[in-house]
């Protein structure tokens, strides 16, 4: 199986050179293959080929192969930039480097490195080295203060996945096939026809299919496996809820607050305040409002209306809704701030022209204001997603602590619960790697798709 992996890596190298390098020669093909094989071999050998050892299952092999080919691919990307430089493809940075050497301020190549070194040292010590340690920890079973650590290869990861390698390969392939199929259909249909409408539906289904594929790839628990599907679904619901509530609410409030009304600037200042508090404080605030015994809201409802408000921690829907409310409220201030700034860039000429042409208020908003706000929206989408993934931990810890029965336990909460509270460093690191990969994938995808739809500048 290891040989199979290496052979495929070599072929990948050849393919990559064929597709991505302009000037190809036999020598370059050979180098490409060799680099791919080397890149694939390094992590596998570093782990002692444990992914292919005796007693490992199909899923272990699959993860090992994925790791190998991923590492090979990264090595090929590095090789490509090397080839590009050799080809004399002057990139902007190279041109600037040329300027450094010939212009009025002459410096050696090492000067930028020296100037950057303080930042680099801090980044390496506090960010990159711990990241590498996280990756190595994720393959171990260890606790703080234990006399030894046990190497468990991929088992921390396979605990989170469905134990069927065929399914693990099939689901993502099917999702990708659906997406490309929808795109193909879109390109081959003309606008306004039923075919195009079908293609629109298909592309939406394509988007959803990724989420469905991931849902099916995580394990449902039982038999020594972790119920990671539950964590995945909860993360999805809470994250999308926070982002939607935060951004839509933020835009709506900012749009309303942007008009010339008396005391408008005072309102705008007050609306931004939730931004200044920490997520923990937001959690405590909403705890004080909704707590069944001590909460203001519940007590008020009981005394004034005689309604017994149900305990928000006993129902999954209420618990998730309260987390979304508390976190969304906190990030609302941030979104309002940026949207207020963005609304100032909306071209008033266009709006006036639209009014003259008879566009309704909603049409003006949808066709003029929102496209003008697209750079802000894109930025806020990224920031809100990061907030919803990572910083909501404190809010959840104060409000529900993952209740009821884990329904508000999102990915980051599970990581801290397992890795820090429970002391199981290996499993915590493995889930951390998973979350890291997910966030990287989302950010990359965001930049590729939404980034292209952003219109900077004027009409």
């Amino acid at each position, binding site marked *: 199986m290891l040989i199979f992996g290496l052979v495929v890596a070599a072929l990948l190298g050849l393919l990559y050179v064929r597709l991505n390098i302009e000037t190809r020669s036999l020598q370059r093909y050979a180098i490409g293959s060799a680099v791919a094989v080397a890149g694939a071999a390094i992590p596998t050998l570093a782990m002692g080929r444990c992914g292919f050892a005796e007693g490992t299952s199909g899923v272990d092999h699959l993860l090992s192969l994925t790791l190998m080919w991923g590492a090979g691919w990264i090595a090929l990307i590095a090789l490509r930039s090397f080839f590009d430089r050799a080809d004399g493809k002057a990139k902007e940075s190279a041109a600037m480097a040329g300027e450094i050497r010939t212009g009025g301020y002459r410096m050696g190549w090492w000067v930028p490195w020296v100037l950057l070194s303080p930042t680099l040292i801090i980044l390496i010590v506090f960010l990159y080295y711990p990241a590498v340690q996280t990756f190595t920890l994720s393959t171990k*079973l*260890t606790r703080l*203060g234990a006399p030894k650590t*046990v190497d468990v290869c991929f088992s921390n990861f396979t605990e989170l996945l469905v134990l069927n390698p065929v399914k693990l390969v099939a689901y993502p392939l099917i999702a990708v096939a659906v997406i490309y199929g929808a795109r193909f259909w879109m390109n081959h249909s003309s606008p306004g026809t039923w075919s195009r409408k079908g293609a629109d539906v298909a592309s939406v289904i394509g988007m959803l299919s990724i989420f469905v594929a991931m849902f099916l790839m995580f394990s449902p628990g039982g038999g020594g496996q972790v119920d990671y599907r539950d964590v995945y679904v909860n993360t999805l619901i809470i994250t999308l809820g926070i982002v939607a509530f935060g951004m839509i609410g933020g835009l709506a409030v900012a749009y309303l607050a942007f008009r010339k009304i008396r005391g408008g600037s005072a309102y705008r200042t007050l609306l931004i305040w939730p931004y200044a508090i920490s997520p923990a404080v937001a959690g405590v605030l909403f705890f004080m409002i909704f707590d069944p*015994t001590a909460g203001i809201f519940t007590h008020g409802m009981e005394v004034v209306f005689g309604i017994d408000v149900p305990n928000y921690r006993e129902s999954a829907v209420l618990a998730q809704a309260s987390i979304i409310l508390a976190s969304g409220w906190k990030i609302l201030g941030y979104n309002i701030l940026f949207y207020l700034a963005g609304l100032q860039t909306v071209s008033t000429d266009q709006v006036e022209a639209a009014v003259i042409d008879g566009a309704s208020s909603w049409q003006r908003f949808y066709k003029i204001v929102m496209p003008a706000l697209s750079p802000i929206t894109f930025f806020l989408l990224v920031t809100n997603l990061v907030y919803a993934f990572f910083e909501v931990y404190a809010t959840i810890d104060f409000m*529900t*602590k993952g209740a009821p029965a884990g329904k508000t336990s999102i990915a980051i909460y599970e990581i801290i619960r397992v890795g820090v509270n429970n002391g199981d460093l290996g499993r915590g690191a493995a889930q951390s790697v998973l979350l890291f990969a997910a966030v990287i994938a989302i950010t990359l995808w965001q930049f590729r798709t939404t980034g292209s739809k952003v219109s900077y500048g004027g009409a």
Partner: protein
Amino acid sequence: MKGLLRYLALLAVVMLVAAACSSDDTDSETDTTAAATETTAAATETTEAAPDTTAAPATTAPPTEKIDIDFWVAFSDEARLGFANDRAAEFNEGHPDYNVRVTSFASYNDVFDAAILAVDSGEPPGLIHFFEAATRQALDAVDGDGNPIFKSVTDAIAGRTEILGEPVVLDSVVDAARNYYTVDGSFYSMPWNTSTTVMFNNMDMLNEAGITEPPATWADVETACAAVMALDDAPSGCITWPNHSWFVEQTLGQQGELLGSADNGRSGRATEVYLESAGMMNYLNWWKSLDDAGYYTYTGLQRDWDGTSNAYLAGEVAMLVYSSSDTTFFDTNAEFTNVASFMPSDQDVDYVGNLIGGATIWMLDGMEATTEDGALAFLNFFSNPANAAAWHQLTGYIPITQDAVDLLDSEGWYDESPNSKVASDQLAAAANTPASLGALLGNFVGIRDIITIAIEDILVNDLDVATRMADAQAEAQKSLDEYELLFSG
């Protein structure tokens, strides 16, 4: 004008920097009044309940080199941390060669992790405060070279009856606590805050429902709850307690049921955990039946000490099973007649005994002899009869030594607050068997979490107890297996 402002700004900055950089240790330079005499005298004096610092004529000059002893405490509230700070200050006055420094941490886990990291980095503290459930973990903890981190206090005292003028109190520690922390025949650490579960009853509400005595058995609880919920102005629930594994362990102790193999880990290492025992099923089924009947109120959070005590004080429940460590708090803050009673037990099973809870002070290994003596002296001073009695009166944790109990008795404290006697009485009534002592398990914190998560699942999602605990059993056994893999052999 601009020049003047700039000059003033520069002056302000310089002053700020100078103020920040000045040294601020004021304790070692002041004159110390010898208070060593008052500690030993208080043991014989019976007039004062709390030790007062009686200033005797001082004979000290400012010491040159003090031996620092770091005492890491897992309390951060003013009352309990303040107690530790005050005792440390008194000890420092009485022993000018030593400087006990108290550092507070947010939780027991924080203290432990910090201690391990400190040992690894070569600057360990002297004494740390750690809870009972992690006793196995503390015994197994080793530093980078594989040496145990903690040293047995009994071994360190080595039979002395007095250390640096402080009488040794280790021998008079009450049986329940001594037996819990004695492993392999050695009494390892000095218990500080020890409690047990007691039930607090809102007697006004119970009397209104026709119940005159606090319920003692499960059947009594059900009868009382039926009566309370039948009242016109019935509260929203009848009884509550935090969803904490400690209460589960208490009922297992009451029923004489083991939680771990090798006699609850006391005659060897516990390699198996028993989450599906008859006693466990019995208790969980009863708990679920109370919840189904609307008698038990689940506040929604695991380990919700605050929510349950708030519910009791607000009159939303009539009975609260809780830790005796807050007896004084409830006595002070309840606006109704608050009576403490034994934790109810199953009338169909012979009563064996309730366990202790709380925490103990561990001493780190590898200290020099003089430092170690100082640490031991502080430990014995800290729990001398007067201090132990004062600690009990401040909080509700039991007086940890028999001498302290006698002291309080002779002062009539128990006549004033009868609720405070309940915990000590309940522990004294326990049979000294491995089941009633409680378990020593590896990964006990993780296993406790597995139990509370399973219980929350059962209560909130209305699951079948046996099926859910079967899953919990598999998870807990796996966790224990991994612990044993890492820590033994």
